[in-house]
């Protein structure tokens, strides 16, 4: 583990110390992404409690991104952990652990002709998000989770700009689920969790709101590597029985390791 961290840090230092490249619009590029960050979440699950739980935590992010003159493709895998509390009673608080994770694949087509000012893509995504909450205050229904899986509309806008004598790339990405199959069990049981009833079904916008909005600033480095700072805002509102609402803000530091097409093609020939 230590070797992996040292390798990562050395890779990062090498990249950062390199002279920043000109932020030219990218013709064809793909990268492996790795990110770590902090999250803050406010959550209210009426199936368990009428109270808001909020807290901070950490997030780990892995993925793949490919961009060309026509397409922007992105695979995201992420997981996070928050310890949240509800602040209602002086002197003591009630805590919950929140585990979140997800996988999504987005494919977006360029809307306007390629130019140097900005790139705009529109398309769709398939996703599966899981949120599990472990209530330390509860006696029997300690664990609850929701697992929406579905398809979403997605858009991505990218614009190069110059700031503090550096060429940077700003981007924003918005994902709005249209239809999802949501699995949300109701736990009732004894010491161990034993769920009696599973609330499942197809939920469509606007009964299920699941905004995922990201704002990023990228600094291109040598060899088409990049570092990126992303602010991600997610809002979930599941208006089925026992309304569930959560807002999550994540500040993510990512590195994008370029995966050159040429070297890969050589590998495939051998």
């Amino acid at each position: 583990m230590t070797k992996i961290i040292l390798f990562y840090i050395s890779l990062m230092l090498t990249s950062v110390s390199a002279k920043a490249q000109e932020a030219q619009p990218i013709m064809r590029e793909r990268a492996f992404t790795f990110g770590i960050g902090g999250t803050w979440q406010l959550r209210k699950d009426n199936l368990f409690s009428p109270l808001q739980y909020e807290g901070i935590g950490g997030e780990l992010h892995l993925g793949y991104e490919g961009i060309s003159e026509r397409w922007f493709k992105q695979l995201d895998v992420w997981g996070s952990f928050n310890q949240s509390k509800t602040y209602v009673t002086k002197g003591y608080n009630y805590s919950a652990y929140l585990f979140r994770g997800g996988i999504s694949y987005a494919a977006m087509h360029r809307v306007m002709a390629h130019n140097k000012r900005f790139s705009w893509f529109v398309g769709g995504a398939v996703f599966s998000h899981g949120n599990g909450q472990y209530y330390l205050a509860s006696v029997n229904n300690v664990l609850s989770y929701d697992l929406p899986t579905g398809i979403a509309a997605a858009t991505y806008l990218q614009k190069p700009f110059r700031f503090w004598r550096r060429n940077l790339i700003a981007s924003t990405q918005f994902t709005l689920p249209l239809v999802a199959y949501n699995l949300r069990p109701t736990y009732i049981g004894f010491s161990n969790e034993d769920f009696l009833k599973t609330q499942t079904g197809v939920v469509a916008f606007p009964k299920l709101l699941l905004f995922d909005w990201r704002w990023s600033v990228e600094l291109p480095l040598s060899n088409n590597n990049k570092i990126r700072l992303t602010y991600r805002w997610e809002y979930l509102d599941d208006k089925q029985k026992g309304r569930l609402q959560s807002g999550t803000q994540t500040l993510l530091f990512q590195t994008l390791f370029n995966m050159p097409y040429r070297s890969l093609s050589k590998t495939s020939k051998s």
Partner: protein
Amino acid sequence: MNKKAVFNKLLPPSVFLLILLLTSCERLLVEPNPTNTPTNNFNHLWQTINDKYTFLDFKKINWDSVKNVWQPRVKDTMNDATLFRVLDSMLYTLKDGHVNLYASFNLSRNWEWYLNYPDNYDPYLVERNYLKGVQRYTGALINSFMDSNRIGYIRYGSFSSNISDFDIDVVINRFKDTKGIIIDVRSNGGGAIDNIDKLVSRFTKTKVLVWRESEKSGAGKNDFSTTKEKYIEPAGLAQYTKPVIILTNRRCYSATTFFVAAMLNLSHVKVIGDQTGGGGGAPSSTQLPNGWVLRYSATRTLMPNGLNIENGTPPTIKQDMLKADSDKGIDSIIERALKELK
């Protein structure tokens, strides 16, 4: 300064401002916490029980009348301890050990399901005069031979102590040549329902319907979800189908009542002792606006013959511990079980 330069100057602070704006969005979008006043806490508790508690009709409780009695005693100026006493008293009328209110300074619970009945169990007497120090501890199962190795005795003290498949198979194998087995679950207050399946599955050679369960699904007294049938299938290395006697008392509660109800569906099983304490509703919980946790029975369970087990399962043979026997170091209930198995 041209437009591009202005745009570039304004972009970063604009993004920063947008982020700040979004930061406060959750507060606007997520429903706020309900007002934390004694009146509101009382109303929330009363409404939860009214909508989700499963036994109001079964126990013939007029919950509106209960509200009329206790609501006038709630004042917004009262302190937490006084509010707790009022809510505790109101919940006490449900006579349900699965209905509890948890605050940091106290726990409310109705203990009447066993306090007003004989104990019918003396663990020290059993240990001294029946186990005599030669018992085995196989996981959570204390086991020993009785009646010159003709009878097997299993003591299971709590369903919160998990049983492994290995443990139960070892014990069943140990007693495979006996004439019968006594399973002593007296004063077992319940625990994990998973352990019921493991135990019962070693005493049946066929898949058996053990109970029917449904959840309160609406505010109406008879709003219940579709009934879910619970079956248990044979499992383990071997199944014991010779006579089995379960010993019970009023402190058998919750998962133990479920266990006894399940075993009573098997033709080679008898129950000797007292009626179990009940606890036939699987509990769920919620919070009040002040954070206190309210636990309540959220399901009802009926045996295949239609018996609602909330008030316990009756014994096949009623037998109390007799003082005259106890004074001589004799457990009347074990003796009755031994007699039945001879």
